[in-house]
């Protein structure tokens, strides 16, 4: 079982009346709501939290990419990942990921990820989401009708840039390059493990199976809502003759641990309500550009989580209530033993070997995030370790240099260190 600590980096100072006064947390979120001095503090605290999780023994720390988004302050996850690579030594650096169609040429992604892999000594997990409509089509102006074709071509180009030992020409439909020859190339051979965060489309599952990539479902609505998607994934794997190796899959779950359930309820109610209320306040104008969903996905009636949240908000006139957040398991809350029990059920039921835990959510401050992380590491993690490992090999985990061969950053910003 691999336990990964995931950060969205939400802006924690959206006003209380955000839903009433503002139309969207995404795309055209009011610029004036962001104070760069607050962002300065948040970035540093959030990176502290990620580094702390690595120090507490989480197998990986995860970052991701969003644009013009009030709950995701990481337009460039690679910047954060490279800083984390310097300040951590053993945890995998999971970048989930770079939306490939947004980069021109996409060799930029191949280069930056190769840099992170080299800096970290081979600890990179390379995530390639298509990216949400809000990020790709609206904030980044990509044509929804061409997004997937561009994504798939960019993927081919990046993998070739990583693996082709020669300088080569790439004559794609969208990218023409006379000379592809990235320096550096990745430390991990043939390339860092590739993970695909996606919605619930059958084509994505089939592609992951064909390419032997990890499929990740980043659920904002807990395991009960995610169950159907993961069941669909495993049914498709079975149909394609793939084994049920749980390391083929990743799943994101919000978690809040405290000494007792009562204490957890007291501590995590406000940040959870902040996330489900303010952070998921997405204008329905931006959730479904034509062509973003394939016709097969339309026929299968797969609706994205954000589209669902937006529809819900229109129907119910608000975010999820605390009762609903608890009852539907959007956030798993409780004492360490209670949380461990529930997560064992989630892992077994969904058959996921890569459990991504969102332990800072909404407006949560660093102290509480660190408390959550420490309690989890000390008292939940030991109960989950070893799950699946007796039967399955994880072929999708980074293979870093042996510890003795890895460079260590000089300690601190001192004159002696510089000399």
């Amino acid at each position, binding site marked *: 079982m691999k336990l990964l600590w995931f950060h969205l980096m939400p802006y924690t100072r959206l006003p209380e009346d955000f839903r009433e006064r503002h139309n969207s947390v995404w795309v055209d979120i009011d610029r004036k709501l962001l104070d760069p001095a607050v962002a300065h503090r948040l970035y540093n605290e959030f990176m502290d939290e990620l580094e702390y999780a690595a120090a507490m023994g989480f197998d990986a720390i995860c970052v991701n990419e969003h644009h013009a988004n009030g709950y995701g302050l990481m337009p460039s996850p690679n910047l954060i990942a490279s800083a984390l690579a310097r300040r951590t030594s053993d945890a995998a650096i999971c970048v989930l990921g770079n939306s490939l169609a947004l980069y021109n040429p996409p060799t930029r992604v191949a280069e930056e990820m190769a840099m992170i892999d080299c800096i970290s000594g081979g600890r990179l997990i390379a995530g390639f989401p298509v990216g949400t409509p809000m990020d790709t089509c*609206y904030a980044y102006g990509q044509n*929804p*009708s*061409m997004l997937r074709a561009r994504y798939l071509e960019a993927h081919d180009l990046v993998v070739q840039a990583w693996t082709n030992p020669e300088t080569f020409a790439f004559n794609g439909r969208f990218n023409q390059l006379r000379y592809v020859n990235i320096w550096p190339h990745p430390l991990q051979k043939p390339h860092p493990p590739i993970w695909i965060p996606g919605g619930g489309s059958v084509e994505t599952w089939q592609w992951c199976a064909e390419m032997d990539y990890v499929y990740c479902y980043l659920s904002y609505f807990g395991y009960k809502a995610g169950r159907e998607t993961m069941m669909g994934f495993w049914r498709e794997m079975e149909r394609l003759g793939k084994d049920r190796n749980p390391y083929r899959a990743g799943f994101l779950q919000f978690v809040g641990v405290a000494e007792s359930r009562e204490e957890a309820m007291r501590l995590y109610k406000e940040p959870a309500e902040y996330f489900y209320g303010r952070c998921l306040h997405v204008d329905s104008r931006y959730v479904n*550009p*034509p062509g973003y969903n394939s*016709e097969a996905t339309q026929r299968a009636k797969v609706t994205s989580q954000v589209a669902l949240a937006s529809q819900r908000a229109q129907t119910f006139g608000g975010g999820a209530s605390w009762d609903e957040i608890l009852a539907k398991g959007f956030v798993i809350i409780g004492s360490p033993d209670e949380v461990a029990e529930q997560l064992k059920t989630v892992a077994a039921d969904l058959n996921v070997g890569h459990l991504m835990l969102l332990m800072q959510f909404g407006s949560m401050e660093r102290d509480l995030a660190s408390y959550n992380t420490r309690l989890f590491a000390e008292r939940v993690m030991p109960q989950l370790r070893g799950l699946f490992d007796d039967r399955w090999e994880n072929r999708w985990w980074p293979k870093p240099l042996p510890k003795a061969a890895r460079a260590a950053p000089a300690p601190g910003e001192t004159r002696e260190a510089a000399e």
Partner: protein
Amino acid sequence: MSAPAERTVEVNGFPCRIWEKGSGDPLFYLAGLSGLPRWTPFLDRLAERRCVVAPSIPGFPGAAGHDRLDQPLDWVAAVLDLLEGAGLAGGDLIGASVGGTLAAEAAAMAPGLVKRLVLIAPFGLYDKSFPPPDLWGQKPGSWPQLLASRPEAYSELVAPPEGAAAGEWSIVMTRASEASARLLWPLTDTRLARRLHRVRCPTLILWGAEDKVLPPSYAERFAAGIKGKSTMRIIPKAGHLADLDAPGAVAEAVFEALR
């Protein structure tokens, strides 16, 4: 309304529907946003005096293959194939909205193909003082109000035809919206301004006075850009899809120009 005759031509190997009705000199018509889910009262008016030929543009109802068209040049080549395949050779051409963009492109790039041109609120130019609204960033269900001064006419146009399954029909209409987005995303500026001067045939520019997508000031931009003799007509009580809102008035204006 009697049904139009139907045939198909292939564009890049994909079948595209051609509807035809009436008699006399052929008059070609390229439809606007959402295409031609069904024959319209405007086309019936035209068919009273002319043989109306309405080819479907790839991606719009009745025609496939939009996902092959990446660049504006791909679209122009496809529309020239489509119009030639439909039989246009020095005849009259009407284009509305998205169809107007491509009709203008066709007239610019193959001047011999079009004798007289009618453009009804075409896209393709961009006025930064009056940027068009984000057609594909609207609240669900707001297109009827946005595109037509008679929203019910638009709703009737795009309603599932008899016998069509609702789910599959919604995919057809989403595909039409995708096809227009594919050509016009994100600002509806196809850089037509660089080619518009090549339109040398007499051109009638029609605009709905109540167009909420492209204000009638765009009519003047088109008129100024076209080399040939152009005339402008503003149609009262009509929105962006003016021929849907005011079929009689638009048909009269067309006949007058094509006398």
